[in-house]
């Protein structure tokens, strides 16, 4: 572990430079320890694949003291203590209307639609970090079979909730945006809602599993969302059972 200064605004706590749940476990441990500390109101924390960015006002927080505190907490850390975050069950409709590029993924991988859905819904994906768009999760754990190159011509508009594959990654578009990922489905769950008390559903260190639903179920959930129900919580309860 290395602590590197970021100007006079804080530091970057850097771990081994690779994408692995074991290394990420240390980052999340440190992130949660600092969130629970007395200083947390003065800290801006940005966890990523292999580091934690810690920003603070240098006259309100002592660099030296915080540095010492971090070395101390990491000394106490054991890999076995790796804490699981929340597991989110995200319903996805993989039917044609939403998965425009499903055929592309099938022909690239040589697997059928059913097999692709099975492979995509099998793992628990770890959220390494959020960024690029508000609440966009960088997920680890996509089956190698499903790795599919991005579109040669990116789309200018991808609807919110779209689930796609881009190279070795899979993810959910939180808002309508341009993008080049292969779209395989869509979720009615709003992973980002500016009007919600907690606008972003996920935190780094949480996990996601995708649950296949029919178009009829998708539409029903969307209707409930329009009525003002919190579909994220409903799905947690309904699709969490049996997992």
């Amino acid at each position: 572990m290395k602590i590197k200064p970021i100007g006079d605004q804080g530091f970057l706590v850097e771990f081994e430079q690779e994408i692995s749940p074991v290394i990420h476990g240390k980052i999340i441990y440190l992130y949660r320890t600092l969130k629970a500390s007395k200083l947390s109101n003065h800290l801006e924390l940005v966890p990523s694949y292999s580091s934690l960015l810690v920003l603070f006002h240098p006259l309100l927080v002592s660099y030296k003291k915080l540095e010492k505190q971090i070395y101390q907490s990491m000394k106490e850390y054991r890999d076995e203590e790796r804490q699981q975050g929340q597991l989110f069950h995200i319903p996805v409709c993989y039917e044609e209307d939403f998965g425009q590029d499903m055929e592309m993924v099938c022909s690239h991988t040589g697997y059928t639609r059913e097999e692709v859905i099975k492979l995509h819904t099998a793992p628990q994906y770890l959220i390494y970090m959020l960024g690029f768009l508000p609440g966009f999760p960088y997920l680890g754990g996509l089956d190698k079979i499903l790795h599919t190159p991005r579109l040669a011509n990116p789309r200018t508009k991808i609807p919110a909730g779209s689930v796609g594959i881009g190279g070795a990654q899979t993810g959910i578009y939180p808002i309508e945006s341009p993008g080049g990922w292969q779209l395989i489905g869509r979720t009615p769950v709003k992973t980002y809602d500016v009007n919600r008390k907690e606008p972003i559903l996920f935190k780094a260190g949480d996990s996601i599993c995708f649950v296949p639903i029919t178009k009829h179920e998708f539409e029903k959930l969307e209707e409930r969302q329009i009525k003002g129900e919190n579909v994220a919580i409903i799905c947690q309860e309904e699709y969490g059972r049996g997992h």
Partner: protein
Amino acid sequence: MDVGIEIISSGALSSIQDLGRVGYQEYGIAPTGACDEVSMILANQLVSNEDGEAVIEMTLYGGSFRFLQPVYVAITGADMSPVRNKKPVAMYETILMQRDDVLEFGFAKGGCRTYLSFSGGILLPPVMGSKSTNLSCKFGGLCGRELRAFDQLNLQPLEQELPLFQLKMAYPNRILPFCKFSFFSPRSIPIRLVLGPQAEYFTEKGIETLRNKPYKISLDSNRMACKLEGDPVECIRNTDILSDGIALGSVQISSNGLPIIMLQDRQTIGGYAKIATVISVDIPLLAQLIPGDLVNFMIVTRTEALKVLKRQLHLRRRKAYLKKKGV
């Protein structure tokens, strides 16, 4: 009865900004907020507001505003030759605007961004704890977008029985770093950096280039980043890293070797090595540079950066630069 102000024209880019959104970078949401925080705070102090009240930030070319109520205002930052009802008005002091007054701004001189504050602030609901406009995610400020003609902003009604202390800034150029430099572009401005967090990706020669060669502010610059043109900075292998968090003032070196300095509307994570970070005190200065201006980087230590910051905050806390108007 109509209250507030009406936007007659918005200028090049005018948006509502405060000190920005705290605690959401981990979710991929930029802090946003005023680019030149020092000018923005001074504008608020001149109308006896809290430092962090929302103001209008105008860029390069200002707008014009019709007042639908009396209110105290102050103008700081770049000089956009403000006129009230076609007559010039002073910057850096409290001004009482009357109903039906029209305040107009022109092209910026000597800087890039101008701030307009209102006594009592702008009445808008904060989103995630801030009134700052997040232009790329389209929330905050007024409907999450830049101001447009025919928009109306609600202001605090003026309490006539409590006349405000009318203030004036004694020595704006002592407080505001950008005022120390020539008004005429292209200027050559020193910007201080602390090396890191990924300086080890670069050769000694690369770091020397950054330190010794001037860089020109590119036309491509905006609230997200200040892009620079000049000699490429030599790296050892490449500048690709595993994406990590980006701070205000991070100096990224992209694959073409040119520096990009990340500002308030930046993306929160990125995959280019960051050779250095601009010191906090020089961020407002950087925010006032215009395309064509030249930057000379100076490398300082973190301890030196802290010393300068302490000195500046001490000066600002004393508010000794604020004098009663007419005294």
